[in-house]
């Protein structure tokens, strides 16, 4: 009330003052609104850009290379993240990193390199933007280097591949190079499958560095895949140990062993000597890295004789109870001589195999057309890739020509004039064991047995198996390959190595076979290349290793051994056919 009264008492209003004040206030508001509108609507990009510069980051997640495991989940190759130390010489110079040399000394100590060399690497060319100082350092060392805070020294994520199995499966698994690319073996063949690509994503980070907003994905990543091999690491380890022992005992140049599951065609072990340590790759020798079990071929010698018998039985040119005259222990074919070590007289088919008679087997080969023999060899996988699909596999060499001299036909029957790999040999015996069904060889664990191909009749395959039992029993050529409890159907082979213009003085000693005969599970081939010393026969050199691997592997697979009585019954069964 009193105010109204005052107003009434002071009616003189000075309008321009009011207008000036109101005008100023309005101007203030308008300019504020204009500024706000300018920032918000007309030109928001600049500030947005400024904000993004401070908060937006692109993160990438590192994808580790896939694991390689054996059929039971044992690790054969594992990638572990490590860091690479690199330098940006320009940054180092700009940030005057060389002032405090104590830090460089600490860096050199932890990297175990001379400090002069290290500094020189960075100092030499200040225009350079990138130089590796050390690759694959452990996370602990990386943390230490991070805390040294040397200007221009940075760390980068990478991964290192470890092979827990070491030299045992080195050639099969292969290795990766320093950039994590597979260059040998499984690592090479399945490189794309094992390799993942990192995904990149834009994120917004808060002041303390934690991600507060996930924006669009810049690059869609792909996760890596694992591989489960058909290898059984226990058998692999046993096979390698026995092979190594045989190679050293007989001072051989090299050796291979292949173990195949008869029922599925899966490779349970594949080992080679000499081997190398894939975890210490400073002095790799390429000849040690070759997976000889499938790259190296040799003339299989007497080990193919059972298949000549099978071919003859299949062709019907001989009956299973027929006797073949081999007297006088040698024969002349086309001006060349084929001879046995003794005059064995009339021989049953089983005895031809047990004594490994060249004369007997040549007669069988000459009794059938050469195409029948070659066809049998080829249908069992010779001269063809096994289906294992690994880099460097050799198909072997088997001539396919029209004209063959009689002597050449005879040599084909005792394993000369064509070549095979240890893998192919094991596969041939696996085919015998599976009742004449040829399976593609697989290095990956299979969910179910693949569709096989019947290449021999079951009757013939079983007959030949029974004939081979005698090889490892008293009077056979490979008594050292005998195992009590697991009857073996196997065959020795000793072939001279071909050199330019003929055959040299070096041998390849082979033993291949399947066991147990009554319920075949495994086929194994052992090939010892160039044994030096007095012994070079397949039965002496490769036989013992075969027996050790076979009996150990069958025990590991819980295959029931047969009792003595059963063994006698079995042994007498084929004898009655004689």
């Amino acid at each position, binding site marked *: 009330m009193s105010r109204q009264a005052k107003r009434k008492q002071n009616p003189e209003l000075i309008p321009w003052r009011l207008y000036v004040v109101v005008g100023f206030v309005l101007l203030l508001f308008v300019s504020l609104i204009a500024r706000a509108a300018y920032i918000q609507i007309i030109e928001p990009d600049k500030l947005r850009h400024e904000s993004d510069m401070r908060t937006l980051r692109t993160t990438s997640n590192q994808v*580790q290379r896939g694991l390689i495991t054996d059929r039971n989940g044992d*690790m054969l190759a594992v990638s572990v993240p490590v860091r690479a130390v690199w330098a940006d010489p320009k940054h180092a110079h700009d940030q005057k990193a060389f002032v405090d040399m104590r830090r460089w000394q600490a860096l050199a100590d932890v990297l175990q390199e001379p400090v002069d060399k290290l500094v020189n690497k960075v100092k030499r060319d200040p225009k350079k933007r990138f130089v590796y100082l050390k690759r694959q350092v452990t996370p602990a060392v990386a943390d230490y280097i991070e805390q040294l805070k040397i200007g221009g020294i940075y760390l980068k994520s990478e991964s290192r591949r470890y092979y*827990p199995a070491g030299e045992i499966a080195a050639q099969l698994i292969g290795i990766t190079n320093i950039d994590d690319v597979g260059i040998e073996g499984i690592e090479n063949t399945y490189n794309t499958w094992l390799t993942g690509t990192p995904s990149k994503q834009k*994120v917004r980070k*808060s002041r303390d560095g934690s991600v*507060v907003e996930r924006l669009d994905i810049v690059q869609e990543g792909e996760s890596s895949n694992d591989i489960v091999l058909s290898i059984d690491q226990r058998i692999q380890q046993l096979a390698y140990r026995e092979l190594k022992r045989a190679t050293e005992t007989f001072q051989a140049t090299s050796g291979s062993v292949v173990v195949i599951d008869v029922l599925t065609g899966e490779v349970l072990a594949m080992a080679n000597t000499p081997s190398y340590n894939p975890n210490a790759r400073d002095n790799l020798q390429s000849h040690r890295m070759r997976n000889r079990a499938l790259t190296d071929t040799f003339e299989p010698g007497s080990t193919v004789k059972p298949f000549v018998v099978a071919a003859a039985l299949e062709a019907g040119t001989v009956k299973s109870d027929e006797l073949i005259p081999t007297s006088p222990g040698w024969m002349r074919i086309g001006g060349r001589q084929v001879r046995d070590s003794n005059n064995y007289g009339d021989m049953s088919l089983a005895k031809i195999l047990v004594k490994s008679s060249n004369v007997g087997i040549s007669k069988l080969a000459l009794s059938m057309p050469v195409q029948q023999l070659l066809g049998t060899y080829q249908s069992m996988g010779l001269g063809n890739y096994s289906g294992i699909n690994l880099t460097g596999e050799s198909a072997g060499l088997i001539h396919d020509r029209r004209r063959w001299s009689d002597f050449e036909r005879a040599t084909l029957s005792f394993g000369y004039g064509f070549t095979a790999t240890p893998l192919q040999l094991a596969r041939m015996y696996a085919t015998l064991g599976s009742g004449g069904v040829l399976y593609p060889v697989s290095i990956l664990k299979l969910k179910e047995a693949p569709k096989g191909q019947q290449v021999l009749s079951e009757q013939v395959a079983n007959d030949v198996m029974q004939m081979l039992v005698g090889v490892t029993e008293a009077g056979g050529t490979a008594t050292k390959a005998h195992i009590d409890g697991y009857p073996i159907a196997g065959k020795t082979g000793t072939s001279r190595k071909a050199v330019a213009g003929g055959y040299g003085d070096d041998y390849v000693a082979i033993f291949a076979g399947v066991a147990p005969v009554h319920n075949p599970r495994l086929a194994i081939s052992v090939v010892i290349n160039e044994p030096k010393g007095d012994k070079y026969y397949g039965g002496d050199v490769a036989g013992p290793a075969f027996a050790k691997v076979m009996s150990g592997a069958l*025990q590991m697979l819980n295959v029931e051994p047969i009792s003595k009585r059963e063994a006698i019954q079995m042994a007498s069964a084929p004898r009655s056919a004689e």
Partner: protein
Amino acid sequence: MNQSALNLPRLVLQDIWHHKWVVLLSIVVMINAVAVVYTSHVSRKLTSQWDQLLQQQDHLDIEWRNLLLEEQSQSEHSRVTRIATKDLNMSRPLPKEEVVIRAN
């Protein structure tokens, strides 16, 4: 005039009542705005937590890989065989020494 001037609060209330929907909506807008701020804050916190969990997962993965390597080297078959035969005086029975026990 006098009467209305005396009842100014009432007038204001009447006016508000007259525009009750506008007032209500503006209150809702205010609440909404605060809720937006709040949820975005919560979502940021969750994202940050998620990120931390992812990092933790990475660390655990690295640890797992290293443990895997250790397990593998400890349980390496030739090492187990060596310990069993040398240190524990065990031996693997030959196939002929095996005794098969059948369940049926």
